[in-house]
């Protein structure tokens, strides 16, 4: 019964020899807050560009609220915050907002946009003189301007300090409370976990994991334990999600490192133990190559 905000079927985009998005199937119900999590070059931006109608897929299809993305954009159903999105030059923030405001079918009142994006104190600032965080606020204003039902955010908090980031997400949560669908790309697992009800992990243009924050965190957010010891059934230890042997060292990926280490040291004659946090990139690679289900 719930309408689909985004429905992608075998969505594919190639740039020369590079396949940026590779047969992606995705259904996002209306009202969901979804995060695209993935390393740089995973295909997050290209997917967002196809959903917002800026890029045409080479194969497959994407529909937004049951229609093609460009029609949805023209109706004002989609607002997007592009990565490094351009700002209009030779004017100030107020001039930019006025120009964009009149281009939407049913925009939010300008006052509300200024308030939500906290732009009141920089309205007279020329767009070329904005700091990184201020420019992001202007891009955010442009994304919510159409009063969209689907908000697409491509790495929205890049360039924001911790405090601004916190306020940004408070604002986003407030907007989403009206039943808007929010789809944001990030490479911060914590950000995805904190603000999204669903996390889609994407790497190499493909979806490699799809679930809620707890699930994804268990699979990509764990600790990496390596040690020298006998061959044994380490996979059955608490929290362990993956095992491997490399260069004479056993390697475990675990979601509960304390419990795993306690049992390891108690039950096995191991030595040279190391516990590290794998880089998210490594976790993605592990997810892409192996099957840890």
């Amino acid at each position, binding site marked *: 019964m719930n309408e689909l905000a985004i429905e992608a079927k075998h969505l594919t985009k190639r740039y020369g020899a590079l396949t940026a998005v590779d047969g992606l199937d995705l259904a996002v119900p209306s009202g969901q807050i979804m995060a695209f999590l993935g390393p740089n070059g995973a295909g997050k931006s290209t997917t967002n560009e196809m959903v917002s109608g*800026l890029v045409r897929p080479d194969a497959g299809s994407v529909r937004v609220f049951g229609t093609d993305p460009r029609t949805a954009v023209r109706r004002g159903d989609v607002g997007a915050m592009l990565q*490094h999105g351009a700002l209009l030059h030779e004017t100030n923030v107020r001039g930019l907002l*006025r120009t964009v405001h*009149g281009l939407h079918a049913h925009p939010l009142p300008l006052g509300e946009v200024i308030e939500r994006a906290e732009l009141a104190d920089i309205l007279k600032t020329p767009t070329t003189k904005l700091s990184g965080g201020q420019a992001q606020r202007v891009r955010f204003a442009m994304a919510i301007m159409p009063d969209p039902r689907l908000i697409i955010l491509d790495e929205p908090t890049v360039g924001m300090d911790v405090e601004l980031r916190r306020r940004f997400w408070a604002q986003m949560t407030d907007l*989403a409370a009206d039943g808007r669908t929010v789809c944001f790309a990030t490479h911060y697992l914590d950000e995805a976990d904190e603000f999204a009800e669903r996390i889609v992990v994407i790497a190499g243009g493909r979806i490699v994991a*799809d679930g809620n924050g707890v699930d994804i965190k268990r699979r990509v957010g764990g600790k990496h334990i390596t040690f020298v010891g006998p061959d044994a059934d380490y996979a059955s230890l608490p929290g362990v999600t993956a095992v491997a042997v490399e260069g004479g060292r056993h390697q475990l990926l675990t979601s509960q490192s304390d419990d795993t280490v306690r049992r390891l040291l108690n039950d096995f004659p191991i030595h040279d133990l190391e516990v590290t946090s794998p880089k998210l990139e490594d976790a993605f690679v592990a997810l892409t190559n192996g099957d840890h289900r």
Partner: protein
Amino acid sequence: MTATFPSTTTPTPRRPQGGEGTSSGRARSAPPRGGLAVCWHYLVQTVRLTLTDVSFVGFLLAMPTAMYLFFAQLYKDEPGNGPIIQQSIMVMMATYGAMGSAMFAGNSIQGERSTGWFRQLMLSSLTPARFFAVRLLAALALIVPPVVLVLAVGYLDGVRLASIWVWLRVVGVSLVVLVPFVLLGIVIALWLKTQTASAATTFTMLAMAMLGGMWVPLDQMPGLLQSVGRLLPSYWAANYALLPISGGEIQMRGVWTLVGWTIGLIALGVVGYRRAVANSKR
């Protein structure tokens, strides 16, 4: 690998559920703004932004005005035909400013495309077709300010034409004969890359003005340059803009020249537009 969302999803507690909370935002009272209203808004904003652009004001409003004042002071006190020369200089400089304005406005779509602002615009109710149509209209509208400004300065400087209708005809004729230059600006913007486009626009504008006899009358040039000049739309644009004052006959050769350039530039523009839309990521 496929990833369809599990139907048994449980809503997370941190997500506030708004009312029945299914699809849309708030209820909207006003009817949605239509395509025409969006285009009109964009037209007004484009003209407004251009008129506050420093380089536009400097080169295409201030410079022709200053050139008129400079040359007019040299010739206007000449016994006999002084007033006629002064009138001609006024119309020439007005046409020159308007020609530059038309090309500048047409060429300005290049900036939108290279900065990525065009992509941002495509996230609104504007479509590529509406974008180009509006920029064409804006460029036509921007022919008017330099003409009106130079004529106004001329009037204050003592130029008197036969009647108000002659003044209006000068403005009206300029609007029509400068259409090819709007197209020329757009074609350059569509076919050339950013750095080359603005240089090419300036170069073309100066060449058109000089070879078309806008600065030095064509009949004072060597024979070869005269025949080149008669192939240019700038020569005929200036020639026709002077007609309301000189009262001469319309030479059909000029009409064909202007129509030929217009058709050629429209063809180049259409091909360039298709190529640009197909190649760019919008």
